[in-house]
């Protein structure tokens, strides 16, 4: 936008209010900048949730934890029975980042990141909410909440999923896409799979229905070099019409639009989770400018490895934010 290469789509949307209202309201913030809309959300709604193995929970008489203390109880019971509470493959960094993002939201509310990004008065990545999130991540690590070797395991070769499949780990915080991956990869295990939302934190300001994820992770924009933007917009409308949305659902994908006809029960619940969420926080590594997003991933991996203090991590983020966000 700053280099003046994409077309402002606001006027087109104003002419087509019914087109705009088909999409989920939470889908638009990611495509909005300077109060103008620059892109149309088209693909994949996915949110991070805690998947768990129902069989293990039943065996040890555990219920999905709603609060931090209940989560710590679940961790203690699982540890005592020699089961790793969480499977985490954090070589990839964005996987561990999900715990941190949820903790920031539960502790400081959905506004704390927005204010830090907008550089609003009092907004800062060194806000106590970020520091506490780091502290709680390290509390989990010290409690032995993660399967051995988590900082070296590679999500892309299924290192965390095989911990779940083998019953060596009971839970995994990951994007909802995991459900369709498991369904295809291990249908027998899919019947044992369920999920719960990330628990609340004592004294936290965040709404327990807030989610971390993306309402649409691919967008259509029109280039400034386009000779006929009107026709291009028509094309985008066709590519996001009801027919094309049905095709996406048939392919077990959730496009970011309202009134989808979904039959898979878990997919249905995901939709409800997204629909009921007062705020959807986009993954930091996509929301933040690239250098800051990369730093977030590195500091978070260091927090998990206990090689950096929560204060250091927060201060490094704020220092980089001062450079990248004017």
């Amino acid at each position: 936008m700053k280099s003046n290469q994409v077309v402002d789509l606001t006027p087109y949307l104003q002419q087509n209010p019914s087109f705009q209202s088909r999409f989920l309201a939470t889908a638009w913030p990611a495509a909005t900048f300077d109060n103008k809309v620059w892109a149309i959300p088209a693909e994949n709604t996915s949110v991070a949730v805690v998947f768990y193995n129902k069989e293990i929970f039943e065996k040890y008489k555990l219920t999905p934890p709603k609060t931090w203390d209940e989560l710590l109880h679940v961790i203690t019971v699982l540890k005592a029975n020699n089961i790793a509470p969480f499977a985490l493959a954090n070589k990839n960094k964005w996987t561990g980042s999900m715990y941190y993002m949820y903790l920031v939201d539960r502790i400081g509310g959905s506004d704390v990141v927005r204010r830090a990004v907008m550089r609003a008065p009092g907004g800062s990545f060194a806000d106590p909410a970020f520091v506490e999130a780091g502290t709680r991540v390290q509390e989990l690590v010290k409690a032995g909440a993660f399967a051995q070797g988590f900082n070296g395991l590679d999500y892309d070769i299924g290192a965390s999923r095989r911990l779940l499949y083998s019953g060596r780990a009971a839970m995994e915080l990951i994007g909802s896409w995991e459900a369709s991956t498991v369904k295809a990869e291990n249908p027998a295990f899919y019947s044992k799979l369920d999920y719960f939302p990330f628990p609340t934190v004592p004294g936290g300001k965040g709404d327990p229905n807030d989610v971390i994820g993306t309402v649409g992770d691919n967008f259509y924009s029109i280039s400034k070099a386009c000779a006929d933007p009107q026709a291009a917009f028509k094309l985008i409308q066709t590519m996001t019409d009801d027919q094309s949305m049905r095709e996406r659902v048939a392919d077990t994908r959730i496009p970011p639009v309202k009134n989808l006809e979904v039959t898979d029960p878990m997919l249905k619940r995901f939709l409800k989770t997204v629909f009921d969420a007062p705020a959807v926080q986009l993954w930091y590594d996509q929301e933040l400018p690239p250098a800051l997003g990369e730093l977030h991933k590195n500091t978070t991996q260091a927090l998990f490895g206990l090689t950096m203090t929560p204060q250091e991590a927060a201060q490094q983020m704020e220092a980089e934010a001062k450079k990248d966000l004017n």
Partner: protein
Amino acid sequence: MSFIKLPMATMPKRSRLGRPSAVVSATFLAPAIALLGIFLLYPLISSFRLSTLDWNGLGSTERFIGAQNWIHLSHDPAFFKAVRNNLILAVFSVLIQMPIALTLAVMLDKAGRGSRTLKILYFLPLLMSSVAIGVVFKNVYDPNFGPLNAALNALGLGNLAQDWLGDGRFALGATLAVICWQNIPFYMILFMAGLSSLSPELREAARLDGASPLRIFWHIELPHLQGTLRTGVLLAVIGSLRYFDLIFVMTGGGPDGASELMATYMYRTVFSSFQLGYGSTIASAMFLIVLVVASVTLTLTRRFETQI
């Protein structure tokens, strides 16, 4: 004194046409020079030029900032950690790969024809793609399912079982071991080629004079391999300083930069942080460092060279 006819004397005389004309030389050299210019010289100059910009590599937002990237690089702890890791890699690659490769080469050379199967087996790692090797060893090192820790536990050495790739203290060492495993065959072949040019009479004469195999190795084979060894050391050093693939696949430079190399840091800077200018600064610095270290290695190894 008998007259020995030197092989040189029987060689055909130089071309009857005399020295080729400048036009002919230029014509034959042109394709090579053009390719070098396009694929070596131009990118080199261009990366130095890019290192003076603040640019994300997309769009037209680039800004000339002079030496600022270079100043930033000179106090970037992440870069120095990467340089340190590269140097560790270079030193250990030479210290581990050369002796093992040399031993294998000498032994295979001695075994002669009977060692064909072994030769092929030892050569295999070199034929595999680095990405495949990386994925295999990620599984070998996996602390939950990997055979390495399982074997250590089975042998009663459970206290040696480690979180090989996830613990900053072991990540570089664990990848270094795989890098050596992959590259030793290359140097083995190099040294075997060197040994095959040693004339058998020398060894036979020494044996007749009662020299032990160790003495033959020390006084005949090793001096004969001097030049090859030097090439090997130089290639290992340069290769280690530019290293990228197995580290990228196995640890991505992590955890927390513990196994970061200059090349992986450059990659992350350009393709994850989208700082093309700063990434080019790292690339240019890398070129200068490789140039300096390679020249020093060349001079040092030449100094220790003895006349044979």
